[in-house]
Structures are given as C-alpha cells and as structure tokens.
C-alpha cells in the first residue's frame, strides 16, 4: 500500500514535555485517528510534522518527498485545521475566500461557496459572531477548498453538537472516497474515530504507544472483568494492563481468543477505543 505520509523518529524536547521518536505512516485512502489525553503530544506531533515548530530531529516524507526540502510544493496539497489557530475573527467567510485564492493556485471559489452554503455560513458576517460549530465548519471549508490530497485535522470535532459532528464526519468520509486522499485526525472524542477511522494511533506522554487498525483493536482486544482471586491466576505477560476498581478488576487483553483458550474464560467484553485508552493511561502492570 502506497504511503501518503511517513514520519520517522520525530522528536521535540521542551522544558516540561518531550515528543519521543515518533514513527508512523499513513497509507493512501485511509483515515488515521490520533488519540491521547490532553497534553499527550497530539498537537505537538502535528505541528512538528508540519514544520510549524522546529523539530529536534526526525524525517517527514509527504507524497514520497522530503518535507524539509520540498515544503512549499508539498503544502500546496495539504489542508490543515488547527484547534487553536486560524485567521483573525474580524474576517468574514467572504474575505477569507479572497485571501485564500492567493495562497493556492488550485483554490476553487465555487467549491468554497458551495461548502459555505451547505454549512449555512453567511458570507458577510465576521466570524467572531459564529457559534463554535460554525467556526469549525468554516475552518474545514477553508481547509478543503483547494482540493488537498491530505487533510491534517487537530481536534476538528471538539465543541460540536452531535448533528454538526455527524455532518463533518460525513464530509471526511466523502473526502477519502476515491481512494486517493487521506486524513490524519487527532481527537480525544474517541467515539468519532470509531465511526470513521481505519487506523488508530495512540500517543501517551509524548510516546507512540501503538498504531493498529481499528478493526484489529475492536475485534482482538478485550476486557476481562473479574475479582481478585481470578486476577491472580493471570500471568502478567498475558494482559496489557489492568485497572483496579472498587469491587473488580478490568483487565485489558491484546488477543482475546488466545486468552479465552488459555484461561478457559467464557465472557470477554468488546472494548471501545475509549476503554482501551483509559486502561492504557490509568492502568497498572
């Protein structure tokens, strides 16, 4: 499978936080969800791979080209939504269109206007007066109207109501439909990723914990709920982590079929991505 983005050994050190040798790749036509709690390093990963912050080391290849050497060329085909950064709120969607056409030769004004209409965004109102859902829709319309091949979105569904979230997730699905486009999407709302992501990357304390296909995560991972007596039967190598609750243990299993066979357990719960993330973060080994 051809990769649209390859990140190798991406590192960045701050006084109080460190992004530690992050590696991952994004195949064509896929949606990759980057999950992790607040402050885990999702935004730093996105900013470092886009050269917004100066990385300490690492290599980023986009469309097979080195980003460091071909930054302007590559960025023509990338659309980005950042959680904490956009144009001044004193601009109108209409004036944003006038600005954007100067940055991208492929900027499609008709497509942009179509999105504004679809999202019910008024052309001549300063977007300071928009709701957070409308602001996010404007950011997304702005990011995709130059027809990028790769969309990088930092927390695009935060603060949105379920209807707006659903609308936006539909747009993302449409975007990758032709198999040529890809999306890297960071979110701590893991239920959104369960709907649309093909792969899940989990980052914790600046370290990439795993990159797995969503189906593999949901099908192979499992959660065993048991009491202390049962828990003591399980060998540490057979589970990922456990979380001790008031009356029972939640044990995260990486291969539930092997575990079932080995310990003769009949019920293993199917975990959500949120369950997996929670036990990884809060659990012990």
């Amino acid at each position, binding site marked *: 499978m051809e990769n649209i983005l390859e990140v190798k050994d991406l590192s960045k050190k701050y006084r109080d936080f460190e992004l530690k040798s992050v590696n991952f790749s994004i195949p064509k036509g896929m949606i990759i969800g980057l999950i992790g709690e607040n402050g885990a390093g999702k935004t730093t990963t996105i*900013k470092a791979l*886009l*050269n*917004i*912050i*100066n990385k300490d080391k690492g290599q980023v290849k986009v469309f097979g080209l080195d980003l460091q050497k071909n*930054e*302007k*060329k*590559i*960025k*023509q085909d*990338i659309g*980005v939504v*950042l959680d*904490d*950064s*956009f*144009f*001044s*709120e*004193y*601009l109108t969607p209409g*004036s944003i269109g*006038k*600005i*954007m*056409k*100067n*940055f*991208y*030769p492929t900027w499609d004004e008709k497509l942009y206007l179509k999105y504004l209409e679809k999202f019910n965004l008024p052309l001549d109102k*300063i977007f300071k007066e928009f709701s957070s859902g409308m602001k996010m829709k404007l950011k997304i319309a702005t990011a995709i109207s130059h027809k990028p091949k790769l969309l*990088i979105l930092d927390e695009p569904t935060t603060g949105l109501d379920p209807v707006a979230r659903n609308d936006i997730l539909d747009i993302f699905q449409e975007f990758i439909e032709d198999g040529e486009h890809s999306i890297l999407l960071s979110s701590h709302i893991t239920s959104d990723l369960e709907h649309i992501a093909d792969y899940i990357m989990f980052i914790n304390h600046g370290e990439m914990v795993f990159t797995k296909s969503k189906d593999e995560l949901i099908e192979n991972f499992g959660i065993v709920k048991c009491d202390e007596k049962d828990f003591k039967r399980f060998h540490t190598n057979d589970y990922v982590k456990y979380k001790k609750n008031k009356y029972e243990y939640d044990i995260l299993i990486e291969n539930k079929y092997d575990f079932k066979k080995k310990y003769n357990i009949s019920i293993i719960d199917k975990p959500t991505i949120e369950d997996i993330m929670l036990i990884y973060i809060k659990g012990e080994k």
Partner: protein
Amino acid sequence: MNVLKGLVVKDFQTIKSYKSTVLFMIVIFIVCAFLNGDVTNFLPIFIPLCFEMLGISSFSYDNLANADKYLLTFPIDKKDIVKARYIYILMFTLLGTVLGFVLTLLVQRIKISNVPDKECLSNTLAIIIGSLIAMMFLQAFQISIMYKFGAEKGRIIQMIMIVALMIGVSFIATALMNVLNISLDSFIIILKNYLLAILGISVMMLYIVSFVISCKIYEKKEI
C-alpha cells in the same frame, strides 16, 4: 508574489472591519485642525501616525487569533510572513501620509479661502515627509521589537523605546543646534534643504537592517 499579496490582503481585510472607527478618527482630526491655529502642525503628523499605529496593530490581531501557526501550514515560509508585514505597514503608513497631505491642503484651502501659496505647500510637504521619515525610523525599531517580544510585551517595550528615541533625537538636535550655533528656524531650513534627503536614505537603510533582523528573530522563534 501571490503569497505576499495574500498576506497583505489578509491584513487589509482584517482592518476593514474598523473602517468606521478610522473614518470617525479622521473626522475628529479634521475638526481639531479647524479649531487649531496652524493646520500644518497637526494634520500631517496625526493622520499618518494614526495609520502607522493601525498598521502595527496587525501584530495584535494575528496574536489574538494565533494566526502565525495557521499561516505556516500554507505553502509559504517564515520570511514571506515577515516581508508581507513590512510591506503592509509601509503601505498603510504611506496611505496615511498621502491622506494627511491631501487633507491638510484641503483644510488650508477652506481656512485661508484661497489656494495655498508655494511656500505654504513646500512647508506642508517638508513636514509630511519629515513625519514619514520619523515614523519609518520608529517602525524600523517597532517591528523588530514586536517580532522579538511578541505583540503583548512588545507594545510596552515599543512605548518605552519611542519615548527614549524622542528624548534621544531631541537631545541630539538641540546639541547640534548649540554646537553649530543656529536657531530652530534655520535648523528647519537646513533640514528642508539637505537633511531630509540624508535622513530619508538613512531611514531606508535602517528599514532594511530591521527587516533582516526581524527575519532572523522570526526564523528562530518557536511559534
């Protein structure tokens, strides 16, 4: 080139929402000019200064929106952002200068009720060019300070710097007048005849040095 145009258009579009405030300020200045004895002391200085400050305020708008991070996701580099900011501020200052000059002439015409004579025109021109040079001189420091310290801290530092520079310049001018033993009037004549050209060239060079420094600061800066 289109990228620079896009960045400059962005700043112009942002300030557009303030057009009624700007218009209101201009009207106030014109009213003050009518009430003030000598028009040339007021309009050619305050209108360009008002536009200059509006130009510098683009740092604050971008800072509020955290816009620089977003801009760096576009096919542009950090140098383009700095270059466009200099172009925008200079364009805005020139716009204020031209407007200040035209409005001064108009107010003079109405107040004096005849066409301003050649000397009056040349005095107004000298004052307006003088204030343009003074503003460019200040800007050369202001912009680099904004890049170094950011919009918030930079605003306070540039205020201190403006006062320090004004005291410094007036001290040098007074010292020069004393050493050369000339009056303020003769000093203005010398300024008009020779010094404006020298100062103009020096300020342009200072502007270029400021641009190079700002680029270096911004390149190294963690956005």
